């Protein structure tokens, strides 16, 4: 017997237990593969532990809290002014997370997936070492799926101390609402967190380098958000740079520069949300020859294969939007390909959802993209102000927009601004995948009274026969 490392043989090693990795592991288990799922922190990944889910819990709470200030005209009288205990909220957040993570552990377990906690490192293209608490385990695999995700991008102008200067992760650990707050970066994470904390009572300033907030989203879709942000008392400074950021006297002192003018401002806390960066370093990927681009993303084909055919990469470490549902789809596809099934990620229809107030969600092409693809387009809008349910439930801000091919009325894209945009977009995603035409939606009966009637109206508007707006 050879003395040396003891290795466990598995069919597949999945590195990273986020929404991509755990979905892949479960699917592999279903396909009868032996799987080890290596996670250095908690299964569920960023999404579940410090991203999507806790941020939505915060946004939900903030919305409820903010609505309380507007319930009087509904006839509700509050005896006392509502107060917010963010420490108590943290307990709720932890409950939600632990319920979800234990669910994933249970599912992994039942599907024969072994979860190993530790930091992984590729020793060769068929062996991976895992540093667990005080031990080192080696797994030999036939295939591996790299699903290590992303983390907040490094900040050149400040040191994240997680106490005064926070990133998106530590922002969700706050136990008190700061009196004043600077958000650096007006992308979707910054705007979601900024609006939520503004609703909870913080005096929020957002600075953004671009000339408008949510620069990656079409301008006409962001107007309602800007309006609402102003109504919440937020200060938005665009085309503005952070020259310096220091902690002085338990406060954050920043120098902001807009054009030629600079000014010094002080905030109780600052949250830096200037993007995310793929976690592909310190995994040994260079040594085993996995190709990466200059920003650290791993190029893959439509089966999620890297340049080394038995290694797959999924999720935030691949090009495209860093979205959990993209990672999940890729994870399932990679698992099925490893299982010998003819699976592929072949859809351009990855929806996006921004949980600002109001929400913005969309899928498919924008007008510009459609024109670039050679379509002659026709668009229509339906404002929620013309929808009964929207008025009854305080959801009148926003609209549904569809983009169709002028001749065939083939649905090309849809974008929704509004209270439940993220839920409503589901119909658009299915519509695009099925290749529906405006007529298909217009002729479908949607329930009344609901916001989904917006779909009927907007597609009827394409055909020049909307009932509740003038055509």
């Amino acid at each position, binding site marked *: 017997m050879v003395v040396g490392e003891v290795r466990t043989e598995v069919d597949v090693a999945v590195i990273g237990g986020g929404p991509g990795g755990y979905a892949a592991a479960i699917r592999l288990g279903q396909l009868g593969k032996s799987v080890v799922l290596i996670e250095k922190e908690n299964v569920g990944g960023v999404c579940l532990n410090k991203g999507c889910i806790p941020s939505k819990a915060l946004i939900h709470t903030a919305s409820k809290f903010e609505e309380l200030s507007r319930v009087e005209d509904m006839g509700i009288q509050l005896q006392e002014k509502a107060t917010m205990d963010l420490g108590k909220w943290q307990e709720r957040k932890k409950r939600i997370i632990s319920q979800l993570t234990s669910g994933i552990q249970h599912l992994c377990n039942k599907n024969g997936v072994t979860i190993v906690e530790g930091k992984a490192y590729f020793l060769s*293209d*068929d062996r991976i070492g895992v540093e667990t608490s005080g031990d080192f385990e080696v797994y030999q695999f036939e295939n591996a799926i790299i699903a290590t995700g992303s983390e907040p991008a490094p900040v050149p102008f400040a040191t994240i101390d997680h106490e005064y200067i926070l990133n998106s992760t530590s922002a969700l650990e706050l136990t008190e609402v700061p009196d004043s707050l600077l958000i650096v970066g007006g992308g979707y994470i910054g705007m979601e967190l900024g609006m939520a904390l503004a609703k909870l009572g913080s005096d929020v300033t957002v600075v953004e380098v671009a000339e408008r907030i949510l620069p990656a989203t079409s301008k006409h879709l962001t107007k309602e958000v800007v309006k609402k942000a102003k109504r919440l008392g937020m200060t938005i400074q665009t085309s503005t740079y952070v020259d310096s950021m220091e902690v002085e006297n338990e406060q954050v002192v920043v120098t902001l520069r807009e054009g030629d003018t600079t000014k010094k401002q002080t905030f109780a806390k600052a949250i830096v949300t200037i993007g995310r960066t793929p976690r592909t370093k310190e995994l040994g990927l260079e040594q*085993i*020859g996995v*190709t990466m681009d200059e920003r650290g993303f791993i*190029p*893959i*084909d*439509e089966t999620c*294969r*890297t*340049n*080394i*055919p*038995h290694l797959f990469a999924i999720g935030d470490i691949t090009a495209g939007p860093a979205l959990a549902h993209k990672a999940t789809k890729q994870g399932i596809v990679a698992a099925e390909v490893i299982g010998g099934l*003819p*699976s*592929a*990620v*072949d*859809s*351009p229809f990855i929806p996006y959802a921004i949980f600002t107030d109001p929400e913005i969600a969309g899928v*498919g*092409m924008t007008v510009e*993209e459609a024109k670039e*693809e*050679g379509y002659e387009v026709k668009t229509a809008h339906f404002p929620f102000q013309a929808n009964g349910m929207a008025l009854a439930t305080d959801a009148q801000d926003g609209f549904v927009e569809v983009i169709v091919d002028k001749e*065939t009325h*083939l649905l090309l894209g849809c974008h929704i601004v509004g209270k439940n945009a993220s839920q409503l977009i589901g119909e658009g995603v299915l519509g695009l*995948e*099925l*290749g529906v*035409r405006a007529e298909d939606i217009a002729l479908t009966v949607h329930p009344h009274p609901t916001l989904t009637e917006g779909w009927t109206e907007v597609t009827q508007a394409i055909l020049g026969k909307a009932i509740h707006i003038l055509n």
Partner: protein
Amino acid sequence: MVEFKLPDIGEGMTEAEILQWFVKEGDEVEQDEPVLEIQTDKVSAELTAPKAGIIDQIFFKEGETVEVEATLFTIRSSDEAPQETVSSSPKAEEKQQEEERPKNESTSIPAPTNRLKRALATPYVRQLARELNIDIDEVEGTGPIGRVLEEDLYRFKEGASETKETKPVTSQTEAATPTPVPATSGGERRIPLKGIRKTIAERMVKSVQTIPHVTHMDELEIDALRKLRHSMKEYYESKGVKITYLPFFVKAVVAALKEFEYFNASVDDETNEIVLKDYYHIGIATDTEHGLVVPVIRDADKKSIVEIAEEINELATLARKGQLRVDQMTGSTFTISNVGPVGGNLATPIINHPEVAILALHKITPRTVVKDWESVIRWMMNISLSFDHRIIDGVLAVKFTNYIIERLENPNLLFMEMR
């Protein structure tokens, strides 16, 4: 050492079944000596040794289906040493190579196809395309605004296997093994649809799908022709020629085709044109052990009844032996199906696409008919003419049939019109 590969022996064949080996490994053969017999979906053929020597290795068994360019056997000169390879067939080696893809070999990454503009299809159909190994962008969709439907994929797949698909080598003995059925069922047998049967199936589907068929039926008195045939029969039999009714029918049909040119035609679906032909190649539907084949009498207008009779006999014999050449069974402009000798009164024959009409001739029987207000007994025959209603209307079909009937009821007309 010479490797003998399956040649393409005509009309875009992609594969053939090995019917019989005439030799075994180690046998000595002369140049041009038959080595094996193969069967494609159209013809069977003997393949001969390219040079004299000793059969070194034989790679496929009888009953196996092989594709064009596959090595069938190797032949070595009498003084060459036998090849010391393991007697595994090349397909096994290929498979092994495929499985043992070197692991750390870096490959280039094809770009993902999730681009914005793509073939219109539901996710289910996309997945099905992957399962069928079809590039969905190559499929012409027949659904609304060009949507690719499930059946489009199957149609595409069929089309591909007809023309260019490179199928993996499959063993016929395996394919023919009946699928086990549960003991409780009444029992059924599964026979692979292949070879001539498959070709027939595909052609019939194509014809019925493309052509709106109408069948016109009529009857004619055969007494005069019967007399004529009997009077000639003995004379020609002494010369070794068997005179049947068929050559007369062929001649009458050719006369009608000359008069009604739209029956000697085809439709070019791609250009939307009717193609009228000034050559008269008459296909004769012939029953064989393997199924229906249609040998062709070329330039029937330029041949005498006796010549046609001789040719029909020759072709029918070859057809039954499965020895027709491709050029002997393609290119007909009109087809006659003479089912009369077997029996039956009427039929609705399917047109031999891309032709536009087919004539079925039925059993000759004595029947009571009315002539000059009297019941008399005459030798009668029914005929059924299916025609392509896209380009031929009913009245024209009746006229065409009448023209044939006229010549068969009064065969002197054939003689009078002879060139």
